[in-house]
């Protein structure tokens, strides 16, 4: 498998505080890879540097060999990288399906089109994406009344609109009921398998991570302490120290 994303010595410091400390890793085509670590380990910071929301202090990011370090998010998106956020950022004044249509309008480069009615554009296509995440029943509800778990699924539908080759999901199942979490990740795993796209995701629920991830990276205090298959990571003594020695995260995941 060829690699689609590579990070080299990626580093971010805030006023002397080192949030991410020179980490290097890669994501391969068709891979479902998890980035785990305790709260404050630097997972979101790392994600934000990959998709352009943050400029790294040092280091480089390559997408299929092309350097994308410091490019604005919209350009990275156009290069085929999708992104969902830890705190969802949908358009509250639009209906569910219009949120998807918005992404399609952008994908089809119709943003500066003044003629047609936007709500008629790509409606069928948008409905297909909603069907993928089982939201078609709620297509015409205002987005502001959706339950949180449904918003997360909507975000996934939106992120799939430009047929990304790589999808970065920051805590895709946070705030969802346990059964819904498994269901959503199963859906993601199916998409990865069917469409051959790669997914990098962060997650606190270890059941979800170990059930679905092909490979797992562990981040602790800004440093990458493990990168390998589920079994390798599980047996890694340093990971055991961070998780079991501290004894917080496996329990936390069960409570949440």
């Amino acid at each position, binding site marked *: 498998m060829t690699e689609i994303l590579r990070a080299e010595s990626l580093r971010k410091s805030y006023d002397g505080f080192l949030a991410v400390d020179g980490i290097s890793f890669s994501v391969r085509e068709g891979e479902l890879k998890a980035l785990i670590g305790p709260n404050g380990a630097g997972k979101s910071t790392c994600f934000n540097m990959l998709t352009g929301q943050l400029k790294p202090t040092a280091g480089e990011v390559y997408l299929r060999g092309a350097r994308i370090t410091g490019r604005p998010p919209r350009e990275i*998106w*156009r290069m085929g990288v999708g992104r969902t956020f830890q705190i969802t950022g949908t358009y509250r*004044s639009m209906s569910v399906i219009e949120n998807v249509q918005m992404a399609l309008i*952008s994908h089809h480069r119709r*943003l*500066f089109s003044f003629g047609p009615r936007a709500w008629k554009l790509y409606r069928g296509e948008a409905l297909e994406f909603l069907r993928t995440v089982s939201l078609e029943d709620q297509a015409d509800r205002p987005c*502001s009344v959706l339950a949180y778990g449904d918003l997360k699924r909507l975000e996934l539908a939106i992120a799939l609109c430009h047929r990304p080759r790589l999808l970065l999901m920051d805590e895709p199942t946070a705030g969802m009921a346990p059964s819904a979490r498994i269901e959503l990740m199963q859906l993601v795993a199916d998409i990865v398998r069917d469409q051959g796209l790669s997914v990098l995701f962060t997650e606190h629920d270890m059941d979800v991570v170990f059930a679905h991830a092909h490979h797992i990276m562990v981040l602790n205090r800004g440093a990458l302490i493990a990168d390998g298959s589920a079994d390798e990571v599980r047996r890694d003594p340093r990971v055991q120290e961070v998780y079991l020695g501290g004894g917080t995260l496996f329990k936390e995941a069960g409570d949440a």
Partner: protein
Amino acid sequence: MAFYIALFLTGLANAAALFLVASGLSLIFGVTRIVNFAHGSFYMLGAFIGVTLMQVLPGAVGFWGAIALTGLAVGLIGALVEIVVLRRIYRAPELFQLVATFGVILVIQDLALMIWGAEDRLGPRAPGLRGVWRIFGEPVPKYDIALIAITPVILLALWYLITRTRLGILVRAATQDREMVGALGVNQAWLFTGVFGLGSALAGWGGALQLPKGGADLLMDFNIIGAVFVVVVIGGMGSLPGAFIAAVLISVLNAFGVAFLPQSTLVLMFVVMAAVLIVRPYGLLGREEVAGEHGQVGAPETPIRPYGPRGMALTTLLLALLAALPGFAEPFVLTLVIDIVVFALFAASLHFILGTGGMVSFGHAAFFGGGAYAAALLVFHTETPMELAFLFAPLAAGLLALAIGWFCIRLSGVYFAMLTLAFSQLVWSLAFQWRSVTRGDDGLINIWPADWLNGPLPYYYFTLILGVGGILTLRHIIHSPFGYALRAGRDSPRQAEAMGIDVRRVQLVAFVLAGMMAGLAGGLFVFSKGSVFPTELEIAKSFDALIVVFLGGVKTLAGGVVGASFLTSVEHWLTRLEYWRLLLGLVIIALVILMPEGIVGTLRRLALRLRRSDEEVSR
């Protein structure tokens, strides 16, 4: 050298009142998030109440006692305004409260006229500080020196209040996160009332303290409010030391400006503000406004749809009525409708960037007046045919919007608003002071339409077609992909950027479009009146448009148009009365309290409720 020092001291002395008023505004904004347009009115009240009290109370004790009492009185009035008016509308959409404060301005103007009359009052000299001291041979009024000594004391006292007392802790906490303060069991209502009262008291003290230098008159409120906003923004919203530095900076610059470059005085502070904001977008000592920090106030906007058959039928009916109007209406009605259509187009263009784009502009008059002046200048100086000059109005306004927008869209929220205000003041001062080209406040006159349009009837249809056409075009764009992209950038800039939308470019295009439409309205305006004056570029003109957008309903599509029609009609009837400002102010305040979602928003809610109860009955 001595002359420079004297100028410097004059500037420092002038900073005293400015700092007092500005610190009050900053405090109120920080805690309640209200952009208090009426702050200048409290300053004016301070001056008038101060004069009256000083006449009653004798001697030095009387003079300083009167100043102290004035602050308390104005503070009480401020608290009363907060309790009676503002407290009812905190849940309304963001910035809606400024409409209410605009109503308060009008009410206070007429009340002051009733009580104190139209004559300017000279302030009494301060007992014991009547003469001058010679500093390096230059005379400096003793009272100026007293003011220079007082200002740091005020800063220190305020600083102590904010950083060392319990009230100060609450104020700072509320400035950061008022929801949290509420959740911690603080009675927010009284905190807001207290802060509003304190802020008003500071304005009152400012008004009373400047009496020996300036006196009291009925134009003080509008004259100071621009400077006060500038000071607060340069210093950084919510920062007292920032307001102090900015007040000194502006006052000293102004003193030198008066001496060396008198033409610059109108615009100097706005140039400084624009420069500061371009370099430091959040003022000298302000901090960045974190997106979503203030939370979404009120219900979220509901998804939009073009009118269904019923809405289309009603609109068609209304347009048919307007088209048939000349058949039976009196001439003055036609003039009124022309005014309404022009203002409605102007308001709709502001509503386009404000409602759909989330960009609150305080300087939209620059494009209305800019368009009017562009056409008028061509006709006046080069005798360009009207048709060509008219086309130039939206074109020039669009270019102006491109230039101004390029600087402004990098900012957001109140800072965006203030930078647009600064630029519109620049344009205004150009029209006002570049006499050789614009004839200053004599205005440009004899700007009449071409022969085939000259006459009430042809021009009525001309305005109707272009005005309504402009409004419908804007509405169409709101429903187009571009309109959706604009709304996406408003709802969640992060998400929009993460799906390939260049939010700033979308906003700039929208800003230019709105500028062009405002310019079109300006073009229609200038040929209907035959003249244009700098008043069309004033702050008051920008505020008029803002008021009607909020009054009509920001979160509705027809808000701007309905608000403009309503206000133009009401003004038309009320201005015949002697105290029309008082009445208009009361009407605005009543509307704000009764219809916190604006006219259209509230009517829509009522209609929804009716429909729902119908359904329940039929079930």
